[in-house]
């Protein structure tokens, strides 16, 4: 008995298909598993990400282009599932102020594995 890579990749695809959009914000409170979204979301950054799959893994790239959020100090970001109803993760980082000539990319890896 062992979990097969084929099965893990099926789970990966189910999650991958459920990834809806990503969003950034300015909240600074440390993330907890009980969070249900960002602390202070910037709705301008609510965008569909690009997604790449590899064996038992997904890479999600959330791009905030140069026309969005100039002057804003971003410090949190999330990946939304299920048409935005649910949230996969929330990360908090030291703030980065976005300049008018800056394009941001949040690149997140997600792994599916047997434990």
């Amino acid at each position, binding site marked *: *008995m*062992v*979990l097969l890579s084929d*099965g*893990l990749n099926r*789970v990966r695809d189910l*999650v991958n298909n459920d990834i809806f959009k990503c969003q950034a914000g300015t909240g600074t409170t440390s993330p907890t598993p009980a969070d249900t979204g960002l602390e202070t979301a910037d709705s301008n950054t609510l965008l569909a990400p690009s997604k*790449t799959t*590899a*064996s*038992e*893994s997904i*890479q999600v790239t959330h791009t905030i*282009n*140069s*026309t969005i959020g*100039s002057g804003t100090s971003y410090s949190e*970001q999330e990946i939304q599932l299920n048409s935005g109803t649910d949230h*996969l*993760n929330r*990360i*908090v*980082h*030291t703030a*980065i102020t976005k300049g*008018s*000539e*800056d*394009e*941001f*990319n*949040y*690149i*997140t*890896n*997600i*792994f*599916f*594995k*047997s*434990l």
Partner: protein
Amino acid sequence: MVLDLYNSHRETRDNLGNQDENKNLILLGPYKETIGTELGPTQITISNIGDAFILGHVTNGILGTSMLGATNYGSPTVVRVVNPNNIFHEHFRFSDFNDTTVTTASFSTTYFNVSFDLDEIFQTKSIFYNVESVQYVTIYVNLTGSKTTITVDNGGGQLVTLTEGT
């Protein structure tokens, strides 16, 4: 009849069918049956748009000022790496953290490992780039060949653990 057999204290046995050959099989572990989802690192990169024409941009959206197909659109610079629970785990699924300017060993997203020949090097890019400092590193290795020497540069004084096997 059945009562007679019982009262006689004799064993009864079913001699019909084939011998059960499974009864002495022992299932050896470990077998992994739990599916885990692991959130990996998030890299945050910034690209400077330079003079590139960006439709809708307040300054770079002016034809005659900004250039279509500008070549000075900056390559992405990593400005943060955020790790859930402050743990970075290299799964070798993506090569984002392989510093190809230094690495000479074979980084494989097919076999999910990095393999070394004599004097080869593997170096990652920044794997912690937020507010954390690295406390310890664990490396899982499979040793082959007659002799293997591993040198780990722990100039920062961090504890380094080498574990043979996967």
